[in-house]
């Protein structure tokens, strides 16, 4: 008896009936919507190194002194509470921003902080993440974008003012 070779499954034509497709699409859409609920696809993360280094405002910068490892090209990683990596981004060049509102007259170099802004797709609002830069932990905090859709990660972390009252 001659055995007729079976047509590989992959070559079988796919026939989808409309009444079967619609529920699948509906469920898929619902699942996708569920996955993206709370995720911050349009949000940004602003890492601010609070080093108070003297710089010209607006100049490119890196972290100074003990924060020298925070610089252009270094890798920022956010890990969620279960240890799952949620974000991995290469830092752009930092920008020097004023550290305070004092008037320094004609001084070209004044106390500044170094600010790095990067997109943060996938980070979930309200979720707490541990942030590292090139393997060094720089903070653990909840991702809370403000009205401008930018969440700030201060390094080192801000103190808790309520501790002074205790």
């Amino acid at each position, binding site marked *: 008896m001659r055995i007729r070779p079976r047509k590989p499954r992959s070559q079988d034509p796919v026939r989808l009936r409309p009444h079967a497709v619609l529920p699948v699409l509906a469920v898929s859409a619902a699942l996708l919507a569920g996955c993206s609920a709370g995720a911050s696809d349009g949000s940004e993360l602003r890492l601010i190194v609070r080093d108070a280094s*003297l710089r010209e405002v607006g100049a*490119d910068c*890196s972290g100074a002194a003990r924060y020298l490892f925070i610089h252009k090209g270094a890798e920022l990683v956010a890990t969620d509470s279960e240890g799952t990596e949620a974000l991995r981004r290469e830092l752009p060049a930092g920008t020097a921003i004023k550290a305070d509102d004092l008037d320094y007259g004609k001084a070209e*170099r004044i106390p500044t902080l170094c600010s790095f802004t990067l997109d943060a797709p996938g980070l979930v609002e309200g979720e707490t993440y541990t942030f590292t830069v090139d393997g060094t932990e720089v903070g653990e905090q909840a991702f809370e974008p403000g009205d401008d859709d930018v969440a700030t990660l201060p390094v080192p972390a801000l103190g808790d003012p309520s501790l002074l009252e205790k």
Partner: protein
Amino acid sequence: MSRRSVTSDRAAPLRVSPTDAIAATALAAGRAAASEPWGAGLRRATRSAMAGLAGLALAASLAGCSTGPSGGGDLLPGPVPSGAVFTSQGDVPAPPFSGKLLDGTEIELADLWKDRPVVLQFMASWCTQCAEAEETLASLRETYGDAITVLEVSTDENADDVRAYLRDNDVDVPAIIDVDGSIWRSYAVSEPPATAVIDTKGHVVKLWAGGASADQLEDTLSSMITLPSSAD
């Protein structure tokens, strides 16, 4: 004038001229074709040519690695121009240091400033402002030539990153990696770029956090260095 006391454990770089490689390729192919019947000779010549081209590519890549600025001892300045006069202006002793340039050449800072003023440029390969400052330093070297020593002091951990930076920015001065950050700390440098000028008495004349501008360096060096005029 006696040369600075530096020693080098640097191996001679491998240099392969691309034109040599092309000539060798053509020669090999021609020899193969001449000594064989037409068809076999052609095939052999083709194989030889292909092998030669592969060799050419390898040679070109090696040549690319061995040319361009390397941050080594070969980039230390030559003899001080005769007739050049240096004046000392600083009164703060420059923190001493020693170390190895990127090619292994050992240096002592004191050996550098005893002959001529030294410009230390504190940099990092990822520092955008450092790259912009290199043009200023290049024009400075054009003006003062062997009357000054410029030394890049990098905070990078990886020497290849520094080499790539030097190559990408056409920086043809020696470079040292401050492995443990002690040189940076001793000069109170917390962030690149920064520039220091040291006179021939070993004193810090100026130190600019944020790096020196062309005018600042020119003002400082012109007050320290008198070059022999071209009429002399």
